């Protein structure tokens, strides 16, 4: 390069350096908003009971379940309206009844089978075949549906086993549990 050019470059570099040392320098930038709509909502898992459930013994209505005396072969059934909420695009949950909560006389407990059914299975419940139901997720609470809890007294109970005995349902719960 000839001397004139060298000089011009030197001056230019000096100007650049002087300008850089005195103030800020700027890089290209651009910005866009992340989401078109600004709201993010989380899901919900909830279970509520409707009006107090009604009991039947072998299909016949029962006014007062505490006055009933069950014998082997009897099926005591409770119909309870429940409202299930399972909101979450990828939410997986299971609806069941916890029979471990049944307490009382050991012989009667052994002779009773607690089961959870639906009178008319709703479209959103899939029977797992073991007394539990898979609940399909949605974006709103489901309409109330009649859930059934049945106590079946083993027909083959012998001798005087489990006569005049009491079991308590106070700790038995409907359970809606998320699973992964």
């Amino acid at each position: 390069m000839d001397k004139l050019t060298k000089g011009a470059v030197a001056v230019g570099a000096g100007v650049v350096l002087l300008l850089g040392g005195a103030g800020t320098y700027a890089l290209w930038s651009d910005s866009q908003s992340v989401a078109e709509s600004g709201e993010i909502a989380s899901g919900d898992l909830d279970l509520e009971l409707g009006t107090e459930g009604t009991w039947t013994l072998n299909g016949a209505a029962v006014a007062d379940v505490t006055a009933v005396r069950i014998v082997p072969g009897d099926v005591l059934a409770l119909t309870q309206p429940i409202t299930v909420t399972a909101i979450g695009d990828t939410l997986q949950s299971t609806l069941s009844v916890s029979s471990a909560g049944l307490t009382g006389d050991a012989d009667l407990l052994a002779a009773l089978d607690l089961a959870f059914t639906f009178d008319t299975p709703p479209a959103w419940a899939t029977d797992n075949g073991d007394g539990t139901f898979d609940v399909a997720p949605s974006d709103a609470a489901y309409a109330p549906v009649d859930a059934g809890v049945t106590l079946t007294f083993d027909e083959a109970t012998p001798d005087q086993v489990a006569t005049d005995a009491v079991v308590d349902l106070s700790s038995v719960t409907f359970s809606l549990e998320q699973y992964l």
Partner: protein
Amino acid sequence: MTRTRRRLLAWPLVLTLALVLTGGAGAAAWWTASQTVQATATAAVIAPATNIRCTTTGGTLTRTATVAWNAAAQVPASYRVTIRSGTTVTTTTVPGTQTQLVISQSLLGGLLGSILDLLLGGAVLNVSVQAVHSSGWVSVPTGTVGVRNAPLLQAGIVCA
């Protein structure tokens, strides 16, 4: 994890179903309650004749031995009179209302010739009586009374 839990939960349901299904046909068991009552049964005992006794009757040459007894507590259908000498036995039946039997040679001859021969040969014949029920059951026999041939200078049957 959840699938395993589902399988574990499924087994009690399967077993319960099996129990419910087979309960009626298989190992049948039911609530049961029981109580006992008692009764004592005894068969009747046929009341016997009692107080058998012998009386010699008739004239010197027409002796007979009259064997009599007290009637049984319940009047039987008949009385069986057994006349025995050793192993030779004969019986005769009298109505249950009758409580005596006259033993004569002709009676004996009519019953069993051999027993008459024994009598004539000097043997003592033993007489006993049993009450006989209409069903055929017989009472225990009375004790025995003996009869024998009349001694010298007499004829007939006399009490021994």
